[in-house]
């Protein structure tokens, strides 16, 4: 079809068409509010974070320690009821220097999202968080890091009870 058909439907618009009123549009804002139950495993994870501990879960059958903890092991589909405290240190598995926010606003100082393999969990098992107290140019894969916690009285039982992970000397 394409060889003998060059005229494809579809009418491109530009931002100007909106500004100059060349096209009609309807603008609307939707607000959805939710209260998500944290469940059994993540509930325990958040409780532990409030106490300054990163919690994992151990599967006796697969001999794996995963983080965040869950109620069921996806490998064997057996219950995973053994929650184990892990270290609050780890190794940078990968990272990015991100110059745009979640809603695409430009920022000068990059955010540094990373996957951090948590000490005590099985190899390649980590969580997503951010890095801080570090020059972005010095961040590298394999870098050793430790959680920077909020003050105990400010913790709410949330992933943000860890402010970020910061480099450590060992």
């Amino acid at each position, binding site marked *: *079809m*394409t*060889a*003998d*058909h*060059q*005229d*494809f*439907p*579809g*009418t*491109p*618009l*530009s931002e100007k068409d909106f500004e100059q009123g060349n*096209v009609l549009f309807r*603008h*609307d804002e*939707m607000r959805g509010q*939710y209260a*998500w139950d*944290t469940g059994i495993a*993540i509930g325990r*994870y*958040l409780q532990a974070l409030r106490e300054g501990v990163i919690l994992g879960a151990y599967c006796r059958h697969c001999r794996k320690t*995963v*983080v*965040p903890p*869950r109620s069921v092991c*996806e490998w064997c589909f057996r219950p995973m009821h053994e929650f184990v405290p892990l270290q609050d240190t780890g190794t940078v*598995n*990968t*990272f*990015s*220097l*991100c*110059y*745009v*926010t*979640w*809603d*695409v606003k430009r920022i000068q100082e*990059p955010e540094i*999202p*990373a*996957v951090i393999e948590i000490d005590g969990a099985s190899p*390649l*098992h*980590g*969580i*997503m*968080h*951010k890095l801080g107290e570090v020059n972005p140019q010095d961040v590298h*894969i394999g870098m050793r890091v430790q959680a920077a916690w909020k003050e105990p009285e400010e913790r709410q039982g*949330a*992933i*943000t009870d860890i402010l970020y992970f910061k480099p450590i000397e060992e």
Partner: protein
Amino acid sequence: MGMRKVAVVGAGMTKFVRRAQETAKELCWEAARLALDSSELTMDDIETVCLGTAPDAFDGVHMNGEYLSDGAGAWRKPYMRSYVGGGTGVFVPIQGWYHIASGLFDTCLVVAEEKMSSYYPHAQAAFLTIFDHTTERPLKPNLLWIFALEMNRYMHTYGISKEDIARVAVKNKRNAADHPSALLGDPNITVEDVLNSEVLAWPVNRFDVSPVSDGAVAIILAAEHVAKRITDKPVWIEGVGWNLDTAHWTNRDLAYPRYVEYAARMAYDMAGIREPRKEINIVEPYDPFDYKELHHLEGLLLADRGKAPQLVADGVTNRDGDMPVCPSGGLLGVGNPIAAAGLMKIAELFWQLRGEAGKRQVPGQPKRGLAQAWGDLMQVGTVVIMGR
């Protein structure tokens, strides 16, 4: 397994544009009409309709499949909408395939649509809702994060440079210059242009990423006895596969897409392919980011791990190379209206295998092609193998 043979007998698509004046329903109808016209069928000949469209958050319409149904020609017909994230565009023809292979229907119209521009001011923010609401969303993640994190891990594991990866963007955007529906075709783009484009989320620069787009694609599937009455050049669906990994994406190896390999093995087995590197003549892997094309070639077992960049550097993946990859121009060049972009790859194989791809035609009368898409939280692989 007693499955019937299924062929693609028609295809149509709209332009892929940053923002279309047409609504999502209108885009669906335009693509469906072209697909029907190309096979000289009418809706009376179509027994069932399958629709693919990605997250409802883009459109702000709950039950988007039902909302789009009249544009997709589903009025008073058995109709289903499928959704597997970015993998949807190559999953929805699989859904159409099993509708017919099972013997339930003889003809199926498959439509994939995306209108990402409605979300205001930028579709990117709608992606926040793909992350876990309790353990990840409070960090205000951006979709670019997961790609940047995966790309960095891939580069680090195999010692791959940004130049190696930028060659993919150059190849695909140059290929797209020959596609009449393309949004970002550029015959003169260079590796330097990609490396010098704005850094969004290092190691991802602007030209490493495919653009947010609006568009729709449709194909028509038919059972063997019907296909042979419709056309002299049916393109057969020889194998399909799909596979999903865990949503706990920080608990697995980011350097290798195991789920793509499993999807590919399922499709190769069905197609009776033992040596994919010799038996696949054209590849249309999912390329929303340039490194993803390389990542997927490795998962599809079409390159050794960490060695896909060498194929690109050696010209093997050029349109006139030994294994052309994304001769359409891919998502990086043609555009990325998510579900439509995946089905565009199926349409491209249909045109290529029939020798109807015009300026994009791969030389040497290719016999067999593979299309693949990918999505969710770096989780799903969907694969279709087509041959003539």
